[in-house]
């Protein structure tokens, strides 16, 4: 019943999106606005339809219909309700439906806006969104149908099919295989939706960019319209990345958070281009420069999103994340090819129209610093891209898939990231159009001096690693610059209006959300950088086999092995759990319980570390191995991860900053007008400066 309803809705939605594509193109070509309007309604209708499909799958998952192959593959009776629901994105076909659902939600939201001023964009935005949606739906219907069931034919054969083959009986297994235990983690419950949200919302700026290319509009309207979408997409992608790191840290049990795995890279690459885009659009808005470059960046970001999804799901590169081998590869490949080629062709066609309205006239101006920022981001992208596709290239030329390891990425991106940190400190102080060393130095010397004091303090405290000193000095510089910016703004406002300091600070940020939200995001990135520098430069580890009562020492901590117990838990796990006592300088700090869970249904073990977290550091203990009761020894691996928690704090601050920057302005019309005015004056002043 639910299977047929779900599949039926899926097919109808697919037809609906095809109709929308044709209606939009036809309406635009023949200048019949009612067809475009009809396409818009088709777009809006896809959302409730896919919602229905999603609800059908959730219904099947929750009511344990194990005759449905997807339900059988991702759930089992012992799983709690919330995991049964989130199993929607626990397997290939379900997650594709979820992708399509989010995509239609975003696309519908964007079509709901008032289009009066931008009517020429509308049909093409609809076309881009619906083509993407139709592609995903066709993949689900043809290759990854979540509603297929098990049947036993009269010949005794067991097959999987959507509709009942003649003379066959439904097979209803008593229990399912259960979700992959690695995915049974709270971080895993929210990590995929966040990444998907980031991925799908980048479709919106791309759709507007393509619409601008097709219609030939040269102004920056498409950028202004999609600024918030881009920021929201970027925020979700960032959250997804941080949560993924947190999950790796908690669940994979190797003491780290980032492995430069192809799938991690696949999500990181659009983040890099997206971040570059967020910065470079400002140059087009303020100075009318970089039009082509912005177009390239938005196309690149979307292409990398699709490319990443393809890598994850086609089995081209092996990875811890890889979904089971599937037939969607060739179709996905065709879609990628068409997207890339069409975008490139459009870009070349409009290349000459997208010329800059001005030019750069100062090496230290904000725009030239942003240009350097973009180049550095592209440098990081080049490194990550090369490392990701290198196994393919090496296989092509040598016949062996050689994977690139973490040190390659760390060594080659390290200096680029240091450069980006430095820019984060300088660029906010430089002016649009024109800056000199003198003006810049005047704004910079106070925070610079403070950061030098921090550097001296670090050297005195005994830090000798060059990388760590440089990194932490740069982070302190950015922190002081950013706080100084807040301080100066607040003082100026306080003097001018007589508001108290706190009100002045709040109003300052509220009046100029984009700028101060951006600063908060900068601070959050710096906090994350501190965490990364901490764990990369100062992580220490040890491994020891202990018998109860014995202890080991690491970084001032004493870890004493007390006992170990093995027992079965009701939800189908066998747990081996060790009890360790932790103390530092003779002071008892409590107990840690590293454990190993063995899942009977999927026959898979999982290592869960015992972690003691403080602002300063993490003590991270993994139970590696243990002997039978008679000998009673157990092996532990212990990591000391200084500063790692700043990475997670930074993640939370990033969300906060993004909200400040993306929050809608009440007086939007006024704001737009004043921006245009300020841009005109900036341009004219730069002209007069010549």
């Amino acid at each position, binding site marked *: 019943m639910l299977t047929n309803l779900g599949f039926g809705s899926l097919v109808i939605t697919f037809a609906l999106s095809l109709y929308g594509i044709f209606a939009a193109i036809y309406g635009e070509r023949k200048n019949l606005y009612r067809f475009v309007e009809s396409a818009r309604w088709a777009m809006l209708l896809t959302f409730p339809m896919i919602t229905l499909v999603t609800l059908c799958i959730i219904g099947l998952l929750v009511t344990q219909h194990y005759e449905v192959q997807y339900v059988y593959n991702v759930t089992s009776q012992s799983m709690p309700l919330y995991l049964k629901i989130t199993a929607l994105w626990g397997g290939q076909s379900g997650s594709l439906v979820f992708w399509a659902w989010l995509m239609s939600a975003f696309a519908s939201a964007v079509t709901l806006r008032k289009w009066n001023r931008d009517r020429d964009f509308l049909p093409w935005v609809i076309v881009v969104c619906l083509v993407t949606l139709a592609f995903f739906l066709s993949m689900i219907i043809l290759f990854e149908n979540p509603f297929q069931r098990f049947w036993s034919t009269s010949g005794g054969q067991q097959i999987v099919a959507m509709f009942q083959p003649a003379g066959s009986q439904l097979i209803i297994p008593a229990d399912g295989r259960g979700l992959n235990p690695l995915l049974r983690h709270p971080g895993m419950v929210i990590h995929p939706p966040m990444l998907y949200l980031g991925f799908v919302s980048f479709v919106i700026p791309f759709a507007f960019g393509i619409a601008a290319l097709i219609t030939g509009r040269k102004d920056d309207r498409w950028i202004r319209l999609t600024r918030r979408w881009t920021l929201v997409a970027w925020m979700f992608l960032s959250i997804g990345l941080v949560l993924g790191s947190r999950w790796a840290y908690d669940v994979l049990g190797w003491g780290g958070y980032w492995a430069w795995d192809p799938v991690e890279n696949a999500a990181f690459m659009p983040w890099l281009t997206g971040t570059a885009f967020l910065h470079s659009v400002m140059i087009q808005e303020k100075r009318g*420069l*970089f039009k*082509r*470059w912005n177009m390239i960046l938005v196309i690149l970001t979307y292409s990398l999103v699709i490319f990443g999804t*393809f890598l994850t799901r*086609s*089995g*081209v*590169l*092996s990875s811890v994340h890889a979904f089971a*081998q599937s037939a969607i*590869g*060739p179709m996905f*490949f065709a879609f*990628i*090819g068409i997207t*890339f*080629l069409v975008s*490139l062709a459009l870009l*070349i066609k409009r*290349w*000459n129209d997208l*010329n*800059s309205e*001005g*030019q*750069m006239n100062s090496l230290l101006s904000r725009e030239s610093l942003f*240009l350097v920022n*973009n*180049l550095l981001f592209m440098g990081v992208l080049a490194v990550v891209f090369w490392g990701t*596709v290198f196994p*393919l*290239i090496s*296989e*092509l030329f040598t*016949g*062996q*898939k*050689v*994977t690139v390891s973490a040190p390659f990425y760390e060594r080659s991106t390290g200096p680029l990231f240091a450069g980006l940190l430095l820019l984060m400190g300088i660029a906010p102080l430089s002016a649009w159009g024109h800056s000199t060393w003198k003006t810049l130095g005047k704004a910079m010397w106070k925070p610079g001096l403070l950061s030098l004091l921090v550097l001296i303090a670090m050297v005195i405290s005994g830090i000798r690693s060059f990388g760590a000193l440089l990194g932490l000095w740069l982070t302190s510089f950015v922190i002081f610059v950013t706080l100084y910016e807040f301080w100066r703004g607040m003082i100026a406002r306080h003097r001018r209006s007589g508001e108290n300091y706190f009100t002045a600070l709040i109003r300052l940020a509220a009046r100029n959300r984009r700028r101060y939200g951006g600063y908060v995001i900068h601070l959050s990135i710096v906090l994350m950088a501190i965490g990364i520098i901490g764990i990369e430069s100062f992580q220490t580890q040890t491994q020891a086999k202990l018998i109860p009562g014995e202890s080991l020492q690491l970084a001032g901590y004493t870890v004493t092995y007390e006992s170990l117990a093995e027992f079965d838990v009701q939800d189908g796990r066998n747990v081996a759990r060790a009890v360790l006592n932790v103390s530092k300088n003779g002071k008892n700090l409590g107990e840690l319980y590293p454990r190993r869970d063995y899942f009977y249904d999927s*026959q898979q*073990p999982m290592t869960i570390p015992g972690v003691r977290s403080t602002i300063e550091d993490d003590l991270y203990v993994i139970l590696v*191995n243990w002997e039978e009761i008679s000998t009673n020894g157990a092996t532990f691996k212990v990591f000391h991860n200084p500063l790692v928690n700043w990475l997670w704090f930074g993640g939370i601050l990033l969300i906060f900053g993004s909200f400040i920057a993306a929050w809608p302005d009440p007086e939007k019309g006024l704001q737009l007008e004043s921006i245009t005015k300020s841009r005109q004056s900036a341009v004219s002043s730069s002209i007069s400066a010549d």
Partner: protein
Amino acid sequence: MENPEETKKTLPRWAVVTAFVVLLGFLGILGWGLKNAQQGPVKVGQPVPVFNLTTFDGQVVSTSDLKGKVIVVNFWASWCKPCEQEAAELEEAWQSYRESDQVYFFGVDYVDTETQAKKYIEKFNITYPNGPDLRTSISQLFRITGVPETYVIDKNGNLANAKIGPYESLAEIKQMIDPLISE
């Protein structure tokens, strides 16, 4: 990246051609990788490329030195429960062919830690050469889908048969190998 001073110039033809060639080249590599990924394991009847195994004792065994012998390649891992089902039978089979010098066994340890793997070998008294699959190159050669999987190569170096999952019995293993010896 555009140079603002040259913005009035049109895009030269070579740049357009280069852009498309680079893009098509990239798509080509991607498509080729996809084709490989979709190919599945080495097909029965096809020649198996030469590969080397570095055993846990540090010796290097190459299939090129084993011409004229039947080679059994078994993929396993210490964390793999189904592998345990066939471990004793595989060893028994090896013992029965060992004297004849007609058959060679390879144990390829897939994604594992050495300590765990050695324990596994000790537990089942496995005596045929075993070694880690360094950089997973051997498993990629066969494009295995999981462990256990066993591939039997005939005297001419062609893949004779492949078994996905554990062998059920000693008889089943012998059934795969015996016809190839008399060839």
